[in-house]
């Protein structure tokens, strides 16, 4: 009797281990996928920010021209909007309307927060393509805007990859 029960116990134990293992792997795969998606997004935005160079090119009496280039010379589509320094006032002109909760800007701590934290109004974005090793020029009127924010699109959201402050005078 004792000799017969051992294989049954073995099968049951193995089945239990396999079932628990499959569950753990499934959970790990799901968790890993979640982490991967989050890290891929962060990785994409970080890589875009690293690849993007903004530089001061020209300043006239009423306009300011910023150069935008990509260090690897690949194609990149950027979006930008202008705003007041505290982001409470965002430019209402632009070709693309975007919900402020879908636009993420970098705050002083270095983390991304939605623009809706500062402003509930819709933001209007312009797009700009940088397609070759020639820096693209981004000229804006100095007017009342105090900061220009450059974004990349990831899914339905926009993430800041560069910023330039505009000084009057």
């Amino acid at each position, binding site marked *: 009797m004792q000799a017969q029960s051992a294989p049954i116990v073995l099968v049951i134990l193995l089945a239990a281990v396999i079932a628990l*293992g499959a569950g*753990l*792997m499934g959970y790990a*795969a799901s968790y*890993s996928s979640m982490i991967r998606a989050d890290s891929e997004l*962060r*990785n994409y935005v970080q*890589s875009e920010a690293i690849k993007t160079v903004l530089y*001061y090119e*020209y300043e006239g009496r009423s306009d300011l021209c910023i150069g935008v280039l990509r260090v690897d010379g690949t194609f990149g589509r950027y979006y930008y909007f202008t705003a007041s320094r505290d982001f409470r006032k965002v430019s209402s002109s632009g070709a693309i309307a975007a919900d402020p909760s879908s636009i993420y800007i970098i705050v002083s701590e270095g983390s991304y927060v939605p623009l809706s934290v500062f402003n509930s109004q819709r933001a209007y974005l312009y797009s700009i393509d940088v397609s070759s090793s020639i820096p693209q020029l981004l000229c804006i009127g100095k007017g009342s805007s105090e900061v220009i924010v450059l974004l990349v699109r990831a899914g339905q959201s926009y993430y800041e990859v560069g910023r330039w402050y505009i000084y009057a005078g």
Partner: protein
Amino acid sequence: MQVKRAQSEVVGGAIAISILFLTFMMLLGSVFNTTTSTSSALTTRSKFESERILELRSLGVLYRNEVCYLRNRGPLNVTIVRLWSRGSYESRIIDLSPGVDYNAGSVSTAPEYVVTSRGNVIPLREECERIKKQYEVPQAGSPFISDNVLSPRRVESVDACYIVTVDNVVYSILYNGSGGWKYWPSASRTCPQPISTSTSLNPDVDGNRVNELIVYDHNKRKAVEIVEKEGVVNITFLKLVAIPSGADVVNIYFKLVLSISGGNPHDVLINSEVILTPVSGGQQVRTTASSARGGSTDVLVIVGWATFPAGAFEKAFGGISSGGEYSLSIYININMRTGGITVSRISLEYLAVNGATLLWEPKPS
């Protein structure tokens, strides 16, 4: 079927370890993928920034034969992508291999800014203008560099104080200012006030409507003369200037008008110097004044300008550049080389100082 003791534990353990290992690898793979992609972008950016800095350091502006050049002195290929002039730009692709120059034309037509593919912006015209100025010889004319010290309101300043000697004999200064002719006896222990006189001379010998300061002999009621010999004139403006601390250069400009007669053609040699003497005592500094002559038949006009490199004096001798109040003297040596010549009048029309502050406050109008 015979199951050996502990066989199930071994099999179960192996399966459990395999599952844990696979799970760990799955998580590690995600993390590793993220790190690798970011590191790759950082490496690219780092390389780009190195090249960008090297490019900026390599591009040099040259100015040769009135043409402005941008030279690629570095090992990298440089591509110019935009040229800015007067608020607008022109997109142009100009490749500059190592050692190759971009000819930008003359300074007036050179682009204001040149933009490279690495985002460097070179202020080409500004650099050219700066280099061009280094080549320019200062204009050998008469620089009008400050107010005329000898304007009526300064000549009659309450601070005005003169010492005038000709061949070490003390004389006065005569001037036709507000309220008519006055003369200032030379200062000795104190600065005398001007005294009105009935003496009336031509106030403006060279006829340019600027009254002159005349070296005057009050005993004879006439202008001091130098007859057929060498004469040394020394006009000192006591406590005239304050040289600020750390001054680099002090420039002095003057215009002397002499009436001259006899011995045509007038063969007269004039040497002039400007001397700065500290009011508080100490080392006097003097420099030869460059001069140019002009005038008409009987009027000899001598303009002179002297440069005191105060900073250099300071390094060599100490004193002048540390600032302070100074008296200014104009020393003139007049040598009549042929006989029969008379200098019948010595007058000073213009005196300007640049690089120092005038201490003689203008007389209130």
